[in-house]
């Protein structure tokens, strides 16, 4: 057990260190950054704000991690968020109960994921293209559901999901932490995670060795759709309305970025959900940090681009072969010294 804990610590070290450095730098520019206060039965403060604002990207990153681990990508999550937000708002304003609304919304997300999964697994279409269809058409569908307007609602139960609090933490934080934990346990305490990695490394080989690749692929995209549905509900509940135009706009890119920052390779294979969640928090800390420290938010995108390039350089096969070469040289040197003696 201590062995696995140590492995986790080594795996997550770069992300934790990066997050700590960013938080430290922000606290230099904004002294009251780490201050937490307890009011109205919940915690308030910049740190809680980061956890809360980062909820949609964190949720999307959970599904995206699993999809990317299968060597896929899901571009449609932002559009699925818009569809699910629209469905939730339409259902609650039509007078249905909260339980029914949540059920319908989550089923919608699962259906969207199923569509993507069938295109990728059964029709064998490249994931970028397969999910592009829903990305292009999705906002149109959401717009049809809301009939072109921003559907607002006052249902206290639905609003609670976006701005309520439980155990002193905002509800969105509870949702993404809980869901992340469930999925992480599901893939790591069973063989599922390893099978997903096998599909990502070599789909053909894993099928030949008896892994039902089709089912796993479809399940991965369904999980991504489910995450998008949850994120869509939170986004809609937060503003008490469904905005088909802007809900989840470009969040797919942030989610992919979170996964990449988390160190999961876009080429499939080894993945870590905890690292992706840390990645989502790193991105949100940068967003919040830029706002708090008074920099113009225009720099946000440039910083994101710089981060991607940095990670690309570290992850690139050439750089890695250089690292391996360097560590071999280092390992070889002491031996020579011993031989010389």
């Amino acid at each position, binding site marked *: 057990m201590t062995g696995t804990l140590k492995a986790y610590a080594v795996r997550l070290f770069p992300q934790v260190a990066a997050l700590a450095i960013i938080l430290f730098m922000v606290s230099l520019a904004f002294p009251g950054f780490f201050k937490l206060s307890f009011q109205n039965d919940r915690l308030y403060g910049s740190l809680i704000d980061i956890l809360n604002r980062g909820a949609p990207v964190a949720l999307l990153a959970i599904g995206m991690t699993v999809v990317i681990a299968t060597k896929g990508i899901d571009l449609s999550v932002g559009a699925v968020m818009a569809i699910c937000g629209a469905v939730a708002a339409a259902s609650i304003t039509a007078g249905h109960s909260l339980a029914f609304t949540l059920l319908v919304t989550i089923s919608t997300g699962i259906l969207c994921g199923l569509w993507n999964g069938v295109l990728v697994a059964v029709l064998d279409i490249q994931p970028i293209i397969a999910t592009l269809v829903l990305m292009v058409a999705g906002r149109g569908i959401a717009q049809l559901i809301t009939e072109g307007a921003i559907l607002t609602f006052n249902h206290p139960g639905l609003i609670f999901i976006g701005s309520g609090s439980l155990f002193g933490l905002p509800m969105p934080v509870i949702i993404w932490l809980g869901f992340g934990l469930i999925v992480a346990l599901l893939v790591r305490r069973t063989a599922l995670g390893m099978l997903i990695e096998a599909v990502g490394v070599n789909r053909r080989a894993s099928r030949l060795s008896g892994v039902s690749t089709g089912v796993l692929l479809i399940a991965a995209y369904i999980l991504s759709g489910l995450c998008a549905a949850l994120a869509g509900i939170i986004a809609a509940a937060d503003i008490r309305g469904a905005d088909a135009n802007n809900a989840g706009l470009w969040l797919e890119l942030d989610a992919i970025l979170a996964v990449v920052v988390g160190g999961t390779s876009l080429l499939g294979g080894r993945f870590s959900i905890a690292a992706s969640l840390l990645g989502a928090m790193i991105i949100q800390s940068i967003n919040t940090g830029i706002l708090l420290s008074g920099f113009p938010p225009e720099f946000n995108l440039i910083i994101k681009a710089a981060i991607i390039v940095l990670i690309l350089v570290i*992850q690139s096969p050439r750089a890695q072969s250089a690292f391996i070469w360097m560590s071999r040289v280092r390992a070889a040197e002491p031996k020579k010294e011993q031989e010389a003696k």
Partner: protein
Amino acid sequence: MNPRYLPLTATVAIFLIAYAVCIAQYPNMLSTRVIGNLLTDNAFLGIAAVGMTFVILSGGIDLSIGAVIAFTGVFLAVLLQSTAIHPLAAFALALIITTAFGAMMGAIIHHLEMPPFIVTLAGMFLARGMAFVLSIDSIPIKHPFYTSLKSFYYVLPGGGRLTLIGGLMLVVFLVGILIAHRTRFGADVYALGGGTATARLMGVPIGRTTVMIYALSGFLAGLSGIVFSLYTSAGYSLATVGVELDAIAAVVIGGTLLTGGSGFVAGTLIGILIQGLIQTYITFDGSLSSWWTKILIGLLLFAFILLQKALILLSDRRRRHA
């Protein structure tokens, strides 16, 4: 018939049938005015889509073009507002920057062996961010040279206007077709799309070709940005969001295989025209939500992906029999 031409034939047939249906419902749509507007309104998209066609033919993807178009527009607007530089010099400067930008992305893709998807995503963030840093406001361009360029058009029989930018798009397509089918670079692009390993064995200079493909895409995105600034007479950093998706859709609807190696630049023109036609129809109808455009394009995209899959299956089976 050669199955290579089937997607292109299907695209042309769909365009003709759709246009016939439109005319049957609104006879006014059969006029050179509508056709002229179709070309003018989609000029910037068409020019950018030519670059995207080359990228997709080589098996890659370029997500940065929408951001590069917006950057070019803001760059031109800021430059013309704050300096006395002639627009033509500003155009040249903008094209040099965007071409270098594309070449840089190509170099990263080749030398770091990273997927084009994520590299051009970083490029998209960078270009959009640079546009934001230059200005977050919409800046009008009031240079007299712009006015004279905009008043320059050729009157088609029937009263339609072939504007400068509409004509430029047609010229870009023509040059694109020539490059794709009549030059060594064009052959290299197709070879690269067929498979990197085979292309290398055939003696295709992989690195140089990759850099040139993305440089070409950057150049055409810059040109598209110039056209867009002529079209709107302004530069705005939030403009042309999502144009890369429209361009990819046009390329796919135009019959280019997304895995690369097969397709035609001319098909992309038809793909652009189909998208424009859907929009024009919705404008003529007046009661339909403009969001039907997105849904219809999504459905067309899906139909063409299925068609491509079927064709690949068919040619595989034929090869096995042979």
